[in-house]
């Protein structure tokens, strides 16, 4: 067997291996209604916090239980349960990415990514607001 064949075989084996790993490993961005149809499957939801319904977080009793209602852009909404501390700035975020699984009517969330306007300092709106506040 020629040396170059070994090289090619190694490359192909690794490439195939990596491809298989990759293909198994994707998840999807879903809407709340499409996630409902995929019970128990790991998905990403892009939603926003429904501020009209009070969220349930009582750190004194259980710091690892947060529950709130999320609404997506199509208007569907779901109860979300997150077994962790409440992320700071949750109420201020314009958009949240929820990672987790739909279990019945409840979205069991394993991670929350926040998209907060205030994190982006270059966001001119924030700077405008800050300038506005400096007028005393």
């Amino acid at each position, binding site marked *: 067997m020629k*040396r170059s064949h070994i*090289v090619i075989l190694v490359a192909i084996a690794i490439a195939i291996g990596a491809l298989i790993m990759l293909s198994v490993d*994707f998840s999807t961005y879903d809407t709340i209604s499409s996630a409902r149809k995929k019970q128990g499957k790991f998905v990403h939801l892009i939603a926003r916090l429904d501020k009209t319904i009070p969220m349930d977080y009582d*750190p004194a009793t259980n710091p690892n239980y947060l529950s709130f209602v999320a609404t997506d852009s199509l208007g569907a909404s779901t109860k979300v349960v997150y077994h962790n501390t409440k992320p700071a700035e949750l109420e201020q975020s314009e958009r949240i*990415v929820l990672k987790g699984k739909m279990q019945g009517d409840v979205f069991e969330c394993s991670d929350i990514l926040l998209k907060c306007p205030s994190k982006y300092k270059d966001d001119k709106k924030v700077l405008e607001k800050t300038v506005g506040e*400096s007028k005393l």
Partner: protein
Amino acid sequence: MQFEGEHLWIGTLGHSFILIAFTASLLSTIAYFIASQKQDAAEKYSWIKYARVCFFVEVAAVLSVFGCIFYICSHHYLEYLYAYKHTSKELEFKYLLACIWEDQSGSFLLWTIWHCVLGIVLIKKAKEWEAPVMTVVSFAQVFLAMMIMGVYIFGIKIGNSPFVLTRNEINGPIFGRTDYLSLIKDGVGLNVLLRNYWMVIHPPVLFLGFASTIIPFAFAYAGIQTKRFGDWVKPAIPYALFSAAVLGVGIMMGGKWAYESLSFGGYWAWDPVENASLVPWLILVAGLHTMVVYKATGHSLRASYLFAILTFVFILYSTFLTRTGILGDTSVHAFTEAGKAMNVLILLFLVIFGITSLVLFFINIKKIPAVHKEETTSSREFWMFIASLVFFLSALFISAKTSIPVINSVFGSKLAPPEDVEFSYNKVMVLVAVIIGLLSAITQYLKYKDTPIKNTVKKLAVPTLIALVTTSLLAIFYPITYHKQGPGFLGALYFALFASIYSVAANAGYIWSGLNGKLKAAGGSIAHLGFTLMIAGMLISAGNREVISTEKFKDFDIPMGIDPLTKQQDNASENMNLIRQVSKKMGPYDVTYLYDSAGLETGKRYYHLLFQRKDANTKQVKESFVLNPDVYLMKNNNMSSNPDTKNYLSHDVFTYISYALNPDRDKDTGQYKISEVAEGDTIFYSNGFMVLNNVTKNPETNKFKIALTGPAVVANITITAKDSTKYNAAPMIMIDSMGINQIDDTIYAQNLYIKFAGITTDQKKLKIAVKESDKMIDFVTIKAYIFPYINLVWIGLVVMAIGLIMSMIRRANLSSKTGAIVLILVAVGLFYMFLLAN
């Protein structure tokens, strides 16, 4: 309209320096390019002389731009958006540099400054390669100058100037007034997450790593341009070694920073931003090895070209990923959408450098000499090439995964990251670690061209035995507890652990047996030893990382990560509440939240947590320390948490505040109830009773550590709760020139406030006021980890960098004095930063 109090001169000055830098780098590029085409030596030299002048003018201009920005920020000229956005007057001086790096144009400026420094080195050292190499460096400088130019050409905005004015960039009614500056009291300031000394040091080092990758790239171009296809490799190797050391250190500095000050709970998370700098490093290291192979045997030249080119192309691709906001939802890092003009410019930088270099390479590929005889499987160069290939493929794998958002935006697909992002990388990279560990252990012992196998096997016997024994001992006495991903992955972890220990042992052995202890020549072995020690450290520290702030199931093992009772992930309760002054068991420690205190900066609050480890039988305190994680409490009930770590040689105890917003803290509806008691009398409360033992007049010391300024009386009270726990309270009353001071005592565990309210009119009894609060008064939620043997990671990194620098010194033929000085500075600096500076 004339505005009051503005300092417009410095902005105009700074901006003209940018334009000078742009023009000078453009002229320098053209002059160097022409010089590189000339055959006649005298003519060539006159063009080089002209190009050098342009380059030096550019260096002076770039440094002046930096000087102007520094001046604006240090003087808080808030009429400039740069100062308004990034500085604030409360900031400590050392963060001033951090403010400058924080801005997008500030980091481009840093990059271009390093190109200037490296350019000067090249002019001094590159000799006959100067013209083509500097053509590339100067051309990159043209692009970097454009990034911060901020001018309109044919109605298209090019770059973002750092000298724009606040009033022109943001709208606000105050800008209608000529005295608007007097209304802006202070700048927005540095993001609280970035107020850390790593923010001062990490960006310069990382950008030096970024900037230096252009040199092997430029040499590869020079090889094609001069048609001396193989000669560029030798002079390029020292620069590649330098680049690998600096970029490697820069990347891990980011990891150390994340570990120390962000609440990720780790030093590496396969975040796209981390990957963006790791990928070029992997390709660079692959290229480094093929270059060494070429120099020794004449094999692998084409691969060297490709890797040198792709290293820099992937640096540019990383810039594209992290600066254009395309990563969006996938990263914890906050990106700034720099505007469409900027995105196009960055893309142009990538496309022009990437396409030109790759096209040049493929046009000339046939001319690049290659040895047609195949390497034998017992030769060193063959296995070095395989290792380089594995590094390169793993880089492509990481890059492909990181690029999912790009794929989505190009093809309109909707792929999302997998459930466990870290695991999806780890399961592949653990195999890479196995291969690299084994190859870096064995290949050293092989000889170029051909190897007498018998001899090698004999020499490898001892390291093999050492590695087998060490791994088995670890497996028995200190097994990896990462069961979450099942036995298959656990097995892979053990294989990787064996491979990395094997490589550590084999490389240490090679210095002794292969090089006869000649340390000067041992740079390569030392670098391999360091790298694999770092990998071993990662496997042990991550594999045995333990969250100790869990309440449930702490005494039995849940193998597959799913709790059998609730069918939930077993990490469901990794945060624990600590009520003030009540100790709670966390792993081996009893943790008590002692008190909190305010920091110097507004909103900063330190929480003082006492960790005590007691002997199980004697109850004696074996170990005791206080950790002070802090939190920035911001407006709108937001918080940002900074961890604190207790470092031991063998492990770190790491904790941070995961929740500190307690809305009930100030809402207390309880009322004081006054009882009149004599010594020995009892007062009952809902959860027990308390006895007034005696009264001390003018005590020498007191519980509150308050200096007595007048006559004082203390009531000594013993409280017995229902569960028969006893507490002591000592409320005090003190009379001084200010009047009567009542110093209350608080028993947080029982939610009790006790006040010495006074003395009855007949002076026979004391008035003791007791308040029972119905709310829990003060608590924080914390998360705590034990990271075992994390120091191996940092030591491994430092050793690797030292090894790379040693090789660089040898291959660049530095004098032994210069070499020694460089080496000592690097070693001391890195050791201090990674192992002592906290």
